[in-house]
């Protein structure tokens, strides 16, 4: 295990040892994967000591979350006020207290699978990721960074520094829903996040983003056809029914030992309606559906 002194030391090491180095934040995901023999890294670089990457701050209109921020710290962060209740919603359904104390935002992003509860939320917030190597930085939309299950656009000499997204304004709200077999310590059968920007007087949908933990593949993705159905229209129960039938065609869900595709599809539609409804009430509206 390589234990870097600081970020510079780590980036230097990664650049001179390009292959076979597996990065871990606090390790809660990797130890499991080693035991299941999914991976057998030659060298592990332990990032847990890099406290400079543990922060949540606002920079003008941008929110920045350091890669080593734990889920527990994210939920408690004073920088994320009432408008960001969505992070408390994710945290409440994320593993258990002992997992939330070690699981990190960066770890959740880089693990890139349908069981990473934070990803649908970051996708609807249109988040970007900042990557750094010893030669400089690049910023990518999260959507492009996630290339497939356990597949990310991270070069061997790079690390994820932070995720960034635009502040929610007073016309915007965001909500998260998850269904599993129990309430704690469970991998989501399905989860959904919705971002809604609404003209409160006319109920005109100025913008909307919808994500599920699976859409066509086995990673969280946006449901763009569903979004297109709502965007620019007046929000009402009929429009929502229309959208769920569009989602029916858009979602290509597979069956596995956790749930059938039919079950996932039906519950996805319910979760979408609940999340959208909660965005609506967060913007001061009454019951929508």
């Amino acid at each position, binding site marked *: 295990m390589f234990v870097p002194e600081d970020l510079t030391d780590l980036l230097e090491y990664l650049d001179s040892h390009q292959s076979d180095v597996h990065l871990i934040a606090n390790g809660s995901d990797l130890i499991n994967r080693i035991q299941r023999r999914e991976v057998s890294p030659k060298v592990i670089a*332990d990032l847990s000591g890099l406290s400079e990457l543990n922060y949540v701050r606002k920079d003008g209109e941008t929110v920045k979350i350091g890669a080593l921020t734990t889920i527990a710290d994210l939920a408690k962060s004073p920088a994320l006020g009432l408008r960001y209740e969505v992070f408390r919603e994710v945290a409440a359904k994320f593993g258990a207290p*002992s997992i939330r104390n070690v699981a990190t935002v960066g770890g959740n992003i880089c693990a890139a699978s349908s069981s990473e509860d934070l990803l649908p939320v970051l996708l609807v917030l249109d988040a970007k990721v900042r990557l750094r190597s010893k030669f400089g930085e690049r910023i990518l939309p999260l959507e492009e960074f996630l290339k497939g299950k356990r597949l990310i656009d991270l070069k061997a000499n790079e690390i994820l520094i932070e995720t960034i997204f635009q502040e929610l304004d007073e016309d915007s709200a965001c909500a998260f829903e998850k269904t599993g077999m129990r309430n704690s310590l469970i991998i989501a059968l399905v989860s959904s996040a919705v971002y809604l920007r609404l003209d409160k007087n006319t109920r005109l949908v100025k913008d909307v983003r919808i994500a599920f933990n699976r859409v066509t593949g086995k990673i969280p993705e946006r449901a763009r056809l569903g979004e297109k159905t709502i965007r620019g229209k007046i929000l009402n129960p009929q429009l929502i029914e229309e959208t769920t039938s569009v989602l029916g065609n858009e979602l290509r869900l597979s069956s596995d030992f956790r749930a059938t595709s039919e079950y996932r599809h039906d519950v996805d539609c319910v979760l979408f309606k609940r999340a959208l409804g909660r965005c609506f009430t967060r913007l001061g509206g009454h019951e929508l559906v």
Partner: protein
Amino acid sequence: MSLSKHLLKFNVNGKDHALVVESHERLLDVLRERLGLKGTKEGCSTGDCGICTVLMDGKLVNSCLIFAVQARNKKITTIEALGTAENLHPLQRAFMKWNACQCGFCIPAMILASKNLLDQNPSPTDEEIRNAISGILCRCTGYVKIIDAVKTAASELRR
């Protein structure tokens, strides 16, 4: 020192330790096998049962999911830090009073999670207690007596 061996300096239950550990050793292994603290149990080893829960710098963690190296410079609290046979911790007394231990395997973790809760919140609701122990599986009790015991301990600690 090579990449596979590390000097681990940490504090366990108030006592400083310095030992050489291998990269692959988990915190759980070091606590049980090197320091002989067998109160911390190994359950599923995958982070699903919470039986190996300890406190690291005052936060609940699964010791099976943390490499020992990562506990460097940290303060670890295990069940051995709470009470003695002659002078039990109020939580331990309450668990006995309510018969909240059946097989007992999850109890070290249950008591540490409860202590962590009561340290931060002296008057928890049932819901808050359930949430605090939600990462720890008990296959015997059905949790009801455990929750009763935590409430009793809470009222004793408040006095």
